[in-house]
């Protein structure tokens, strides 16, 4: 299949970027990133600088890959990271626009690579359970209802790619933050610190320049792990409870 790619090229954060057009010959079994490999190989053969993009596991779990494809973070397929998107979902002759995540809290580093360290700092502000190595009791000492553990898992499945932020018209990191708050707050081991955790994480989120949530639901729609919007509601409830000084969850 012959494709026209319009790819965002930007030398560095200080320079201005622009879309550049390329012709690529791909086949339908390739992943989207392998198609970009083909483009880069041809650029290198022409002694040009290849397109910089982030990628690592190519199995949909590390959260490295991040491209807005035809206007949607991670492209057209629901619940699919860029690396797991295959070219069979495109047609011969298609024009595909590839851009970086765009958000105030994710400055562009080069081409499609952005700085997502703001997400790390949200976790550092409280996205953990304060337990030192060696302090744990027997793992079966606390029984956890199967459904409750599953609920925590559903939130914990977040891969930290930032698609939720890129999808949000406000550039909000509510879904990312809520997923961690709900994961830890749902587990009995993490319940103890929930109030301080949710306040610290929300404050950090604001400090990093992420926008407010206006319940558009775009984050959930483009989340490659289909993290549910209800997490945000749960976080809001926890945040409210913490702000009112109550230690109890409603």
């Amino acid at each position: 299949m012959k494709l026209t790619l319009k790819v965002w090229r930007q030398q560095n954060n200080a320079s201005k970027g622009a879309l550049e057009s390329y012709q690529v010959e791909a086949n339908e079994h390739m992943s989207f990133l392998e198609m970009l490999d083909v483009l880069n190989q041809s650029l290198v053969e022409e002694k040009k600088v290849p397109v910089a993009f982030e990628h690592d596991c190519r199995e949909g779990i590390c959260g490295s890959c991040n491209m807005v494809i035809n206007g949607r973070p991670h492209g057209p397929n629901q619940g699919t990271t860029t690396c797991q998107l295959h070219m069979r979902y495109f047609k011969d002759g298609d024009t595909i626009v590839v851009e970086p995540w765009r958000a105030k809290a994710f400055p562009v580093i080069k081409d499609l690579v952005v700085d997502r360290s703001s997400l790390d700092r949200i976790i550092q502000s409280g996205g953990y359970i304060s337990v030192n190595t060696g302090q744990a009791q027997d793992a079966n000492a606390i029984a956890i209802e199967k459904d409750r553990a599953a609920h925590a898992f559903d939130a914990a499945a977040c891969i930290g790619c930032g698609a939720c932020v890129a999808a949000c018209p406000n550039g909000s990191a509510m879904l990312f933050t809520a997923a961690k708050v709900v994961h830890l707050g749902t587990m009995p081991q993490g319940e103890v610190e929930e109030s301080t955790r949710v306040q610290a994480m929300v404050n950090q989120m604001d400090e990093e320049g992420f926008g407010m949530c206006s319940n558009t639901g775009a984050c959930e729609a483009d989340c490659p792990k289909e993290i549910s919007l209800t997490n945000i509601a749960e976080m809001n409830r926890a945040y409210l409870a913490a702000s009112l000084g109550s230690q109890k969850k409603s």
Partner: protein
Amino acid sequence: MKLESKVPEGPLADKWTKYRSTMNLVAPNNKRRIDVIVVGTGLAGASAAATLGELGYNVKAFTFHDSPRRAHSIAAQGGINAAKNYQNDGDSVYRLFYDTIKGGDYRSREANVHRLAEVSRNIIDQCAAQGVPFAREYGGLLANRSFGGVQVSRTFYARGQTGQQLLLGAYQALSRQISLGNVEMYNRHEMLDLVVVDGKARGIIARNLLTGKLERFAAHSVVLATGGYGNVFYLSTNAMGCNVTAAWKAVKKGALMANPCYTQIHPTCIPVSGDYQSKLTLMSESLRNDGRVWVPKKKEDAQAIQQGKKKGIDIPEQERDYYLERRYPAFGNLVPRDVASRAAKIACDEGKGVSPTGLAVFLDFASAIERYGKSAAHSAGIHNPDKAMITKLGEEVVAEKYGNLFEMYEKITGENPYKHPMKIYPAVHYTMGGLWVDYNLETNVPGLFALGEANFSDHGANRLGASALMQGLADGYFVLPYTIGQFLSNEIRTPKISTDLPEFAAAEKSTQDNLTKLIDIKGNQSVESFHRRLGKIVWEYCGMSRSAEGLKKGRQLIRDLRKEFWSDVFVPGTANEFNPELEKAMRVADFMELGEVMMLDALDREESCGGHFREEHKSPEGEAARNDEDYTYVAAWEWDEQDPKVHKEELIFENVELKTRSYK
């Protein structure tokens, strides 16, 4: 060079407890004055950095990723072993120890493996306390499943994303230490040299990948937790960025690379589909709990499938060869990885492969779907269910167990694995070899430690499923934080190490020269093309089956390729900027040297054991033939441009009798 394992005296089961209680300690006030560098933030690195931070050391942690959470530990699917015996099926520390020693084909160190089995129990406790959402039974207690090579259920898991959840646990513990100021985190920094001062590891040269600038970092001790070298094969289940560079730079500064030829070929991966392919995707071993592996009995049927004239479901039951069940009735489809991989290769070599390339076998869930479907119908009180009903119910059960894996398979191949048997083929997955370490996990360079997949110590010649996560976390949470004290307790009078020492300047200069050299070649071939060619050579001559003749040829081919690389590679851009092509070029250059040592190691080892199969050494039935008389040793290689040299550590078995490994 005499390699001292430093295994403590005493009975096997008491060694670790006694040693731990009597080893030297560093007092809290001294810990504050001691700096430790940890390179790599996967399971081993993140857990070590977090724990060292908790203990009060000044830790600097490094990753080449944009965040510590991206390390490839995150992709581990199946689970983590622990000798908890929660299932009351006869498991114990000794049994986990024994299974691991046997699974490793008697090529690992007894005392290290026993310690691993002991601390396995603490790991599960620690992870549960961190909030890792492990799979649970209806009663709320932890669930287990089985993995290859064992007959108990000791594997803890979190759906098909166990590695992710464990890594996030360690990452969160690390994040907490970062926020407390005990760990300084350096993202997007790649270690490009080890600095040795007066014979001791005292720092690293790291390249800031954003600016391209080389930076110096000094410490009293350096810990490498930088993963395995499977990407030397180009195609593997490793992430694209996995590399040997940090470990290899240590080798070039005198550390020894142990058993590099021990590489694990995982039997259940999605087969290669074209030349453009960049990586291979694993399908968790847990699928072999329910999937049955087969090829057609008749070559004509296989050819028809290869040409697309027939499909797997067109082959009648009596014309299928469930070769694992036939050859290994005791373990069936759950034989260890090396055995399953070799059997798949043999079937395909006989011309019975089932993909256009002839390099694939079937992994079939039809029997499981029928079995589960009947059982579900029975539970639902449906009498005389028809076939469609059974299939529907059965598929629901299979979806609950393996849904995400089936989905991933369909995304990649475009074929529905509920309706058609999966096609799988072995692929490089893990490397048992790594930096030589003693019982303290210290390399032969004093003050340099290696953890997780980066060391060689626990898996012998073959790793059992769900043991990599166990080892990474054992080393990081429960072993190194103690054993590093043996070294650091003698360093309490050592003042802060200065990065102005001439050793740092020299290391920085040679690294800079290397980078400049690569950029200045300005040849005509891409880094990627060299990596692909290297991978083909290593797979061809040092892959699933090796011979003396092939290994000699392979070594020569790599040397030729290396020469070509250093005269004709093209690296665009400059060294003073964000330049992923340059990063890759450095890594491929190191893989080329490592590849040569792998060939030499495989050549030296005149026996077949675990993942190392020499065509000259097999039993009449085609099974691996070990030679305990002459090869019960660890081969630790010292790098030399012309002629790498081997040093040997004899393996002493005092508790386990060396037997021919049988899964029949």
